[in-house]
């Protein structure tokens, strides 16, 4: 066989290995795990947003049928080491993460007591009978009010509600502003979202008193981080503490933090000596799963007459809710907003501040895009506003400011380095039909229809290495990924990773990478992920890191194993290892018809005595463990183009065209990349037009059901055209760029611009619900 004739597996639309089980109802999700003697938890949750807990009366509940035990915050205090999301960052206050509220509650839905009962039905019956008396502590709901001193404090120890404050500066933004020909600015607002994975969170803890070992089945994107945190909290060493994420029904960041309930089920399983399950219902999910994107950004952009950016200023106020989430901290989102604000543009003068303000709402955490949907929304609006003032077409405005191919690597105004990638190529690709769409728009407008076009370009850093933290100074390293690949005595290949795939299809893409590098078939490779067993260290799947980091680890590890395979085969063929090759599960001497299968080789090596001399046998190991660290990260840029129509009477928005061009580096599996983009854009559309977590002035959440938290359906999401620019990526072993989040980053910006264009008014608040458009466009008349 000729090397070049080998089938290319990386880049092929291989069908997913996880599909057959998921399509036939044979997946195994946390709620599918039902263990003998298992107990169920239901919580009594706070109906106050900010109050002192005076008394929790569990007597009536304890007498209910099926109740095994009831725990309050006071009952568990002192039975574990409390945990905080610490950080080396200055001006940061790390809040405690209580597993059950004690002393006070800080948001509606915070767990006050846990009922453990024989069934969920009975547990809920009892939870209803728990009587809690509260002393209200004053509203701390409004982010702007909380940012000022003098109001009620959520965390008295902190002495302020502003728990993070951080500034950036490059050049002289104020000076640049002062002399600029054109200045545009506004206060932008993105309202709070919730990740709303279709599977709610859930945990099953199974403590084995005999072995003093704990197994936690968790809907977590970060089993490694959870394991390490639980070790601290429970003092169970890692070799007796197994955290595993089985099949997971989506996460989007909502399952990427350590949760109080997650630690509590472990505590209670150990205490009661029985398996304990808690499964969030949708109401609890909407009350307690980490929320996101709640920012107010005051921003200003200055340009010269030619539309070239001179300076940028921004002040971001992030409403981060009641606690600083573990391990990301409350800094993650607001700081990312200003870190990424300059986007793919040349900005030499920049000044920005980000503050995270605690409020009595569910904590915010990671959600697809983290901060950058707001960055892109603000920057891309400013670009359009400036273009309008200058009479420039928005496309031309971007062309004039985008970092060009000869400028890479480019250090952005906030210090992020953009490596070589296709900024311009994406912009040009997505606008291939731009003129035709503009003509269509003109024709529609001539008929009185409100049709608008909106562009958005952005760049993100994905696959972050050890040099760059997801949030500044946070307590865990997420910049490396380890793989162990093993060929066992049957010749089968098993690969362990620390990631936790939950829809991304990594069982398939990583198998593709390994198959190609090792020379086996995709179906020969079993990818084990989502488990802390089998690897010394791992974190999980978040921040568009898995293809880059796990893909990179897969390559270097597979190469190491391949070397061993060829060395062993060389002995058996009595040939030079350099003359051997492997593909499709066969090892062969190139240019001859001599070959053997991986199975034959493994049997000979492991099981057939006397086939290898002792010295050689001791040298060969058909397994390897390697760690990959991309050190910085890889740039993933994209441009989006949306055409919308707004009904001039009802203010309903219909998307007529949606195009995305992204640079995802080398594509591992085109079907899967397209799927990531479609899904990301759909969430961006939700963020732009529909989704909003609403609280009233007392901190009660009004969007506590999926009737009221409005997720897009198949009717609201349009068909999309997606194009991948595959720019070669230097200094990166796989050449992959992260693709998990981009869709969500670009869509709100593109849609805000498109709707602004359609209605002729600046859209500076998202989501643009029909109600908001109505108010915006009728404010003079009413």
């Amino acid at each position: 066989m000729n090397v070049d004739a080998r089938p290319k597996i990386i880049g092929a639309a291989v069908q997913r290995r996880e599909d057959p089980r998921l399509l036939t109802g044979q997946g195994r999700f946390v709620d599918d795990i039902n263990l003998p003697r298992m107990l169920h938890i239901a919580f009594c949750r706070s109906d106050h947003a900010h109050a002192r807990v005076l008394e929790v009366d569990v007597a009536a509940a304890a007498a209910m049928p099926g109740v095994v035990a009831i725990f309050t915050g006071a009952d568990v205090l002192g039975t574990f080491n409390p945990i905080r999301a610490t950080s080396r960052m200055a001006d940061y206050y790390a809040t405690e993460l209580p597993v059950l509220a004690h002393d006070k509650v800080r948001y509606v839905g915070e767990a006050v007591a846990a009922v453990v009962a024989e069934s969920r039905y009975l547990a809920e019956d009892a939870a209803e009978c728990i009587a809690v008396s509260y002393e209200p502590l004053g509203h701390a709901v409004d982010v702007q009010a909380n940012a000022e001193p003098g109001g009620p404090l959520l965390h008295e120890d902190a002495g302020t509600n502003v728990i993070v404050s951080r500034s950036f500066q490059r050049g002289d933004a104020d000076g640049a502003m002062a002399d600029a020909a054109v200045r545009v600015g506004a206060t932008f607002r993105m309202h709070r979202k919730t990740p709303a994975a279709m599977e709610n969170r859930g945990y099953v803890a199974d403590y084995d008193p005999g072995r003093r070992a704990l197994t936690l089945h968790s809907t977590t994107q970060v089993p490694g981080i959870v394991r390490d945190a639980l070790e601290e909290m429970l003092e169970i060493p890692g070799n007796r503490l197994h955290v595993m994420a089985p099949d997971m029904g989506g996460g989007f960041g909502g399952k990427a933090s350590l949760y109080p309930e997650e630690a509590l089920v472990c505590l209670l399983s150990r205490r009661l000596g029985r398996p304990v399950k808690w499964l969030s219902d949708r109401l609890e999910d909407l009350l307690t799963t980490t929320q996101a994107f709640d920012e107010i950004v005051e921003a200003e952009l200055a340009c010269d007459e030619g539309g070239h950016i001179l300076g940028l200023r921004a002040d971001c106020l992030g409403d981060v809710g009641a606690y600083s989430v573990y391990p990301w901290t409350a800094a993650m989102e607001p700081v990312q907003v200003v870190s990424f604000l300059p986007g793919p543009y040349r900005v030499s003068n920049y000044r920005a501040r980000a503050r995270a303000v605690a409020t009595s709402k569910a904590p915010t955490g990671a959600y697809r895009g983290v901060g950058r949907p707001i960055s892109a929304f603000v920057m891309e609006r400013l670009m359009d506003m400036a273009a309008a003032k200058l009479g420039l077409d928005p496309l031309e405005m971007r062309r004039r400011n985008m970092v060009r191919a000869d400028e890479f690597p480019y250090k952005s105004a906030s210090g992020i380095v953009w490596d070589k990638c296709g900024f311009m190529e994406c912009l040009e690709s997505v606008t291939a039909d731009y003129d035709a769409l503009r003509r269509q728009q003109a024709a529609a407008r001539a008929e009185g229809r409100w049709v608008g076009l909106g562009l958005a370009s952005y760049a993100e850093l994905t696959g972050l290495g050890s040099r760059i933290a997801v949030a500044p100074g946070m307590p865990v390293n997420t910049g490396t990924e380890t793989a162990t690949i093993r060929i066992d005595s049957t010749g089968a290949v098993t690969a362990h990773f620390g990631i936790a795939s939950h829809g991304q299809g990594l069982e398939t893409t990583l198998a593709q990478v390994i198959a190609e590098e090792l020379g086996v078939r995709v179906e020969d490779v079993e990818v084990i992920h989502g488990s802390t067993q089998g690897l010394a260290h791992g974190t999980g799947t978040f921040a568009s890191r898995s293809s880059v980091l796990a893909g990179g680890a897969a390559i270097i590890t597979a190469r190491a194993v391949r070397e061993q395979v060829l060395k062993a085969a060389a002995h058996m063929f009595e040939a030079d290892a350099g003359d051997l090759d492997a593909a499709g599960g066969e090892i062969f001497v190139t240019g001859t018809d001599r070959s053997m299968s991986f199975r034959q080789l493994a049997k000979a090596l492991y099981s057939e005595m006397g086939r290898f001399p002792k010295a050689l046998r001791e040298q060969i190991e058909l397994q390897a463990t390697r760690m990959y660290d991309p050190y910085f990260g890889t740039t993933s840029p994209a441009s989006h183009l949306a055409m919308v129509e707004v009904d001039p009477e009802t203010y309903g928005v219909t998307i007529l065209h949606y195009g995305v061009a992204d640079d995802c580096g080398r594509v591992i599996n085109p079907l899967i990349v397209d799927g990531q983009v479609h899904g990301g854009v759909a969430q961006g559309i939700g963020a732009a037009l529909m989704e909003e977590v609403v609280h009233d002035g007392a901190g009660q959440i009004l969007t506590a059901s999926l009737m009221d938290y409005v997720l897009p359906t198949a009717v609201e999401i349009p068909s999309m055209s997606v194009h991948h620019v595959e720019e070669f990526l230097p200094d990166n072993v796989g050449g992959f760029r992260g693709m998990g989040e981009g869709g969500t980053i670009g869509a709100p910006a593109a849609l805000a611009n498109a709707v602004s264009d359609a209605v002729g008014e600046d859209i500076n608040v998202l989501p643009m619900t029909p109600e908001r458009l109505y108010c915006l466009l009728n404010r003079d008349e009413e």
Partner: protein
Amino acid sequence: MIAVVVNGVSYERAVEPRMLLADFLRYELGLTGTHVGCEQGVCGACTVIMNGDSVRACLCFAVQADGAEIETVEGLGTVDDLNPLQQAFQEHHALQCGFCTPGMLMTGVDLLRKYPLATDREIREGLSGNLCRCTGYEHIVRAIRSVVGRSVVGRSVAGHER
């Protein structure tokens, strides 16, 4: 005591009146393919077919299903022998996390049996009661569309002859 036929198998069980059909299928019969995402009828993950109609298993008590014939995702096809709709889902990458998938498939089966699905719009409207947070729906629409064109009509779509 209730009697139901699920995927062709008869079961008799004593159940509490308040036991939801979804919980009955999942915890009493161990058929965990039917998923639960909201328990208020919005997400569609729990959709099963009861007496030939797609229904929400979270909005139906098991006692109401007494005497009924129920089809769940487990009855469509097996890992080694996917039915045409399941195959189409795999070919078109119509699932990511797979949590909404059982409900999507059961809704798809009901739609394919009852409606001509001449346009994508019709498919999208038919799916509007099934939320998917992963796929952006595009590939699901394509998968269903690909089966409309083929000779899989009527009940045979379910691969469950009666």
